[in-house]
């Protein structure tokens, strides 16, 4: 390689290295601000914003916790990460994938120990399979006496 090209290559790679380090440091510094959601355990530990500041609460919709208030669009349910539970109330239309055992991300504020959600999003996991296969897995789990709820949903 002739000296001119060598110098260009070195300068270019130095620029690239500097930008990569700068980006890495910024991403590292932003890590806390880039928290997309808080788990019920983090909320319980007081890590989530308080005093009416909105944040996202993520977790699984707890089994047997979903109650529709008759005559309204209001739904009450409990978000859990299997360690802590946070009661949630939401008025509005729920996404198609919202169901018990489903990973869910809600946006709202804590009001008197209850999370008042303004938005409910359903997270779906990276699993795709035909319904027959899903039924077969569910059946196999039932026969092995594994709780059916362990299937699907995935971690938040």
């Amino acid at each position, binding site marked *: 390689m002739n000296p001119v090209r060598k110098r260009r*290559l070195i300068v*270019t790679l130095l620029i690239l290295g500097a930008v990569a380090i700068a980006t890495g440091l910024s991403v590292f510094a932003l890590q806390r601000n880039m928290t*997309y959601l808080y788990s019920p355990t983090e909320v319980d530990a007081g890590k989530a914003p308080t005093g009416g500041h909105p944040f996202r609460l993520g977790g699984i919709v707890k089994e047997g916790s979903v109650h529709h208030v008759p005559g309204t669009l209001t739904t009450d349910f409990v978000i859990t990460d299997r360690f802590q539970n946070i009661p949630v109330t939401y008025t509005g239309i729920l996404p198609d994938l919202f169901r018990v055992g489903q990973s869910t991300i809600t946006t709202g504020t804590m009001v008197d120990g209850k999370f008042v959600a303004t*938005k409910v999003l359903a997270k*779906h*996991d990276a699993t795709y399979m*035909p319904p027959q296969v899903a039924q077969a897995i569910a059946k196999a789990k039932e026969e092995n006496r594994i709780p059916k709820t362990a299937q699907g949903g995935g971690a938040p």
Partner: protein
Amino acid sequence: MSRSYLPHWMHWLGSPPNFYRFAGALRPWLIAAALVCAAIGLYGGLVLAPPDFRQGDAYRIIFIHVPSAWMSLFIYACMAVTGLVALVWRVKLAEVIAMECAPIGAAFTLITLATGSLWGRPMWGTWWTWGARLTSELVLFFLYLGVIGLYNAFEDRRRGARAASLLALVGIVNLPIVHYSVVWWNTLHQGSTVDWLHLSQSSIAPSMLWPLLVMTLATHLYFFASILGRARTGLLSLEGGKQWVRSLVTETSR
């Protein structure tokens, strides 16, 4: 010239007239192969593949969304690598290829964002969220637009190509962020489905996986056909006054 460490065919192909003929001969075959693969992939994905146990038929947008998303990253990597060659070795062909990658990559990124949005509305319950995956993919789109804009802002096209190549090269730091965003942060977007090292262990049924892979092949073939075509016209306008272009014109007009 101490370029002897390069294989002979690279020297040959790096010369604009040779590349022009080579690309012209290869392009129709690539287009045909891309069309055949897309037809098979779409038929397999939209007709043969079973519905998903959770999402029903709505998941079928995966056959457009995921190959486009992979292309948005792959084309960026191609642009950055050819951009580096353009910066260091000042190879005219590398400049042309790097610059012609940008509009194709931008198109695939836009398709990714649009189909993701259409998919997110019914499944997640929102068109858009400022999660790490979605935001970094949007940044990728703006990087492509920046490269296109910077290239066209220069009077001298070769200087413009080199300036834009540097932007393209520096922007490559965004690629790992896009790819690992779903691992590093809690996001609404789910993690990776296809495990490239252990394809059979991917969390997608084989009946759904093969159309996805065929569609991926189709988008790659399309990209190669498209970049060859674009590079040909790019070379023609850049080398307009050269002897080989003149003789080409007199050949074809005769």
